[in-house]
């Protein structure tokens, strides 16, 4: 890959390592520029693949492993452990009367029209959920003192049970953690070596289900993650890399490997968060205030809003969906996270015809084995990749740099066998497949923007991942976007993204406050604790660098159930601030919903305080909105969705689009990792930093 400017301003060599389901990606940045490589993920020993990848990348860069001063790591292993239920044997201690919170969930069915619905199994089976008589009220007051005798019995049962980890979640522990701490002390005395997860530490927010889920998930993955991170650090040391190892957490910042081992639930979405940071890095370099990060791979597409260089974050999310990526079929956890919509739309997504004669695409995927029919590995179902091949958007002989010829006949047979029974001709069927998948992605992006009170039309897309550049123009057409940026290194985006992440920690606290009874002292005390907690985490990596602190209150009108985030200035609050907080809420509410409601008090449920180091400086890219035409020798027809016909397109290698050169669509830009389809409505312009900028032509509709 073409070297670009160093990703960090100092001269040390830093490594970004991303473990995904199929590949482990490594990006090495230093004075030599940027080198990247991909190796297969090793499930038995993920650290082996990392070492392997680091060695290859170091060889390529011509540096020694011992020159690597810092390793930054993100992984989907934690998420996979939850999805595949490969975690520890956990005991869960909870308040008497609430043994089944994690099993009863929200008591609803996430799919109304399936009589044979199967709900996800709780991570801790019922026999391992033990209760103690005790009760704290919503204001933190003790309604029933902790029953010490019962606690003794519970501790004895856990000791006898040989558990790998223990989670503790008591009612309203976010408001008063005394009982949880007492339970923890008793457990530590009896079982000094068994790791403990307390809900008041892992996720001190109101609402028992997500708090308990988060605590239990933390305990469930902790032994595995701690052991793995221990091995990784040892192996890196053994290979001569003595520098610190940092982990990318779900919120898009870095934390020390030791902190990550204690709160592994914060690593759940670390891989995908890296992708959003990658998009954010290029958005900043190009001065794009509002970017729509679009990452499309083999199985899913992920969409994230990036504003002013920062990916949008949320305080809860749903992990390990078990049913067609359907909302509600996973587990809601409350931990800060880069907010992403993920839908079952990728190159391997399988198309079919339903009872109404409609083409449906995904979420079932052919994966990498057998893969799309055109891979020639025994797949017979038509996939998005097969459709792209039949529509000329992929080149049968140029796929993966020509190392993997695609079988056009197999793709045609798959489409013919499964999609033409309603009388569609094969090309229309193939068009229907790509159009439907583009439509699904566009709808997801639009709804996500609406949920955040944004107009998607005002965003610029940043497209990466193997499939995104194939679909990005059509998606932009559907969403009414005028520009798409396709960065280089898109195949290893997350690993590169890790290198530009700040150190950060988001401390959260459930502290209920009605603005007509605002208790500034109570809030100040809580905020001081939160700041100390967050700064402690950040100090490990900040290395004395300055930090910034941002305060967010999650607010609603009294009586509503949905809180909205409201940014507040971070300083000591006084009783007079109630009115200012109310005004800030009214502004935020109006921005989201277009109106406010008179006569109702508002209230805060949860507070969050983000401490972070500043974003590393980025060299602004040399931007070109137009350029000298590139001479294109080769021609390649493809099907232009907006025009509903084949168009004769120019085909060029990506390397031909040097900074300040341009090519009018229809055009195809080819590289080993992916293909960028420039539709007739767009023009592609080479940028100073190796990006491709796709701009809607002035005369295009």
């Amino acid at each position, binding site marked *: 890959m073409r070297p670009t400017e160093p990703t960090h301003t100092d001269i040390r060599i830093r490594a970004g390592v991303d473990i995904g389901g199929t590949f482990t990606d490594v990006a090495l940045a230093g004075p030599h520029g940027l080198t990247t490589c991909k190796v297969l993920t090793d499930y038995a020993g993920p650290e082996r693949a990392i070492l392997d990848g680091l060695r290859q990348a170091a060889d390529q860069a011509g540096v020694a492993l011992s020159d690597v001063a810092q390793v930054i790591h993100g992984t989907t292993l934690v998420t996979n452990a939850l999805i595949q239920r490969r975690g520890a044997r956990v005991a869960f201690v909870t308040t*008497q*009367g*609430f*043994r*089944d*919170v994690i099993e*009863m969930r*929200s*008591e*609803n*069915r996430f799919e*109304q*029209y*399936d*009589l*044979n*619905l*199967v*709900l996800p199994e709780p991570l801790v*089976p*019922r*026999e391992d959920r033990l209760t103690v008589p005790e*009760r704290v*009220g*919503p204001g933190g007051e003790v*309604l029933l003192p902790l029953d010490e005798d019962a606690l003794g019995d519970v501790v004895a049962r856990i000791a006898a049970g040989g558990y790998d980890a223990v989670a503790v979640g008591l009612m*309203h522990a976010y408001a008063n953690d005394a009982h949880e701490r007492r339970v923890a002390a008793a457990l530590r005395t009896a079982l000094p070596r068994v790791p403990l997860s307390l809900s008041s530490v892992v996720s001190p927010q*109101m*609402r*028992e*289900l997500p708090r308990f889920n988060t605590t239990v998930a933390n305990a469930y993955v902790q032994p595995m993650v701690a052991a793995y991170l221990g091995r990784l650090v040892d192996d890196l040391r053994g290979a001569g890399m003595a520098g610190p190892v940092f982990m990318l957490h779900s919120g898009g910042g870095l934390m020390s490997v030791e902190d990550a081992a204690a709160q592994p639930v914060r690593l759940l979405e670390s891989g995908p968060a890296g992708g959003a940071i990658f998009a954010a890095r290029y958005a900043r370099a190009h001065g794009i205030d509002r970017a729509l990060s679009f990452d499309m791979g083999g199985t899913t597409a992920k969409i994230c809003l990036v504003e002013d260089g920062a990916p949008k974050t949320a305080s809860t999310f749903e992990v390990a969906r078990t049913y067609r990526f359907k909302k509600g079929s996973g587990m809601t956890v409350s931990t800060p996270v880069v907010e992403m919509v993920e839908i079952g739309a990728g190159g391997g997504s399988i198309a079919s015809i*339903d*009872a*109404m*004669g*409609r*083409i449906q695409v995904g979420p079932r995927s052919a994966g990498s084995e057998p893969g799309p029919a055109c891979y020639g590995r025994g797949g017979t179902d038509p996939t998005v990749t097969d459709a792209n091949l039949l529509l000329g958007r992929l080149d049968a002989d140029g796929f993966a740099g020509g190392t993997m010829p695609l079988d056009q006949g197999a793709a045609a047979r798959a489409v013919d066998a499964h999609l033409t029974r309603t009388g569609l001709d094969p090309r*229309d069927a193939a*068009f*229907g497949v790509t*159009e*439907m998948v583009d*439509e699904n992605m566009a*709808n997801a992006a*639009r*709804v996500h923007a*609406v*949920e955040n009170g944004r107009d998607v039309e005002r965003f610029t897309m940043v497209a990466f991942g193997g499939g995104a550049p194939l679909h990005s123009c059509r998606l932009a057409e559907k969403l009414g976007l005028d520009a798409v940026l396709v960065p280089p290194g898109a195949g290893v985006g997350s690993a590169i993204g890790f290198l530009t992440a700040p150190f950060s920690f988001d401390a959260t606290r459930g502290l209920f406050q009605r603005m007509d009874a605002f208790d500034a002292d109570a809030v100040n005390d809580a905020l001081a604790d939160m700041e100390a907690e967050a700064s402690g985490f950040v100090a490990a990596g900040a290395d004395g660098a300055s930090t910034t602190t941002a305060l967010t209150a999650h607010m609603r*009108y009294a*009586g*509503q*159930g*949905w809180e909205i985030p409201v940014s507040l200035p971070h300083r000591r609050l006084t009783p007079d601030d109630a009115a200012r907080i109310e005004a800030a809420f009214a502004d935020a509410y109006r921005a*989201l*919903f277009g*109106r406010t409601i*008179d*006569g*109702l008090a508002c209230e805060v449920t949860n507070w969050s305080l983000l401490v972070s180091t500043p974003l590393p400086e980025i060299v602004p890219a040399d931007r070109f909105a137009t350029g000298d035409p590139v001479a294109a020798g080769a021609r390649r027809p493809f099907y232009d969705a907006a025009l*509903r016909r084949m168009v004769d397109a120019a085909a060029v290698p990506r390397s031909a689009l040097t900074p300040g050169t341009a090519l009018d669509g229809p055009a195809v830009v080819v590289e080993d990792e992916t293909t960028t389809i420039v539709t007739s409505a767009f023009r592609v312009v080479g940028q100073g930093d190796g990006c491709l900028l796709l701009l809607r032509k002035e005369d295009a509709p």
Partner: protein
Amino acid sequence: MTGTIDLQIMWNRLIAVVEEQATTLIRTAFSTSVREAGDLSAGLFDARARMIAQAVTGTPGHVNAMAESVGHFARAIPPAETYPGDVFLTNDPWLGTGHLHDITVVTPVFRRDRLIGYFACTAHVVDVGGRGFGPDASEVYEEGLLIPITKFAERGRVSRDLVRLIRANVRTPDQTVGDIHSLAACNEAGDRRLQAMLDEFGLDDLQALSDHIVEASRNATRAAIAAVPDGTYRNHMRVDGFEAPVDMHVRLDVTGDRLDCDFAGTSGPSRFGVNCPEVYTRAYACYGLKVAIAPDVPNNAGSLEPFAITAPEGCILAARRPAPVSVRHVMGHLVPDVVLGALHGALPGTVPAEGAAALWNIQISARAADPDADLPSAEVLMFNSGGTGARPGLDGLSATAFPSGVSTMSVEATEHTGPIVVWRKDLREGSGGRGRQRGGLGQVIEIEPRAGYEMWFNAMFDRVAHPARGRDGGEPGAGGRVELADGTPLHPKGRQKVPEGARLRLSLPGGGGLGDPAERDPEVAARDVAAGYVRGSDRDGTGR
């Protein structure tokens, strides 16, 4: 031809449009049942008032009733009197969705000054005046303010008189009127997105698209019905009712691709508010039929049409005005079990055993025990579910809503809204009916007023005296129980007091089992015992 592809894409897009419509409503509504429980529906209708798309968040009773409702609007306010910027509404139980608490808002869609369709949405609002949400009224007039089909706004101007009238008649004017605005805003959001789609595809109306959707859905539903063996299938189910047990009778006639469903023989009306307007009965009967016969066909006018459902006028499932109907969901939620039981004769191995079915909603008014004490009162609403019936090959779902699609609320959040303590909310051991497949477990809930308070609650609970029956040799689930924690029995229906210091205990029903219990996989049976899902001695799990 690509025309077909375009129609498919637009159909797909309409689903996204109505989802956005529903999302807008959930996020801005005040009503607990909307915001926490998803008790709402949203949909798009064509110029002939045929529903062509529906948000999947809706509950079946709402959605299928709303599907009929828009026709009433279109007749009451003819196109000649319909203008851009108009917003209509009603909460008439017989023209809307079955009780006064549901407000249905309909917004006409105009394109190039021509009426091309309607957006509609329905939500359960906090208060509509009258006696409040409960079964104790003897006529609908006592149950609150009834707003006939009316213009809430005309040409963009909200009717100030109507707003004043509503405000003067309800206990929570800000929230109720706020919810109406939310409903109107949700239709507006849908309209914006629909117009953008019509621009993109260069269309002036919905005609071709709605014909395509309705026809394709109708054909797919008819094909699914045709796969059901012809014949007449009957079922009878007796449930608690209010003052006397209620017999529900149903007869299904399947002839080719046509299915007639009739409730002749069903008991007469109750003196209390558990009566269902026929529209609500039809909604749930249709859900029961569709979920078993044609679950994959999207819900719209085309897929609802092939099910012809009737109930004799005046019976409890087709209440006449002015019968009280406030808690019509208690009977309505039981309707799918009757229908599914009949369908079992036609499609053995498809339908589940009976389940708890009706939600156990608890509406609590916490009041100072000493009227002179300066303690604010509070209203608290909780949604809770018992167990569903065992399914062929699968156990029933424990503490899960069926047929309703709503969610429960967080206990911690509930305790922030009012002076009560929920001491217990966990699975009710041993309450699932035994069988080759076990019924889902109910749950046990214990609630106490905080110090200085007493609480009144409106009981509207069924399956106490008549538990969910098993199927094919499976045993019944445990019946429900309503009592104080000291064992003092309470009535399962009606308004009652829980004094300071006492605890209300609700034991929710379990689902019925399916198949001979002796055939249960011994390994699974052992797991049931280890987890405490079944208990040898204490069958109802309330610890007595």
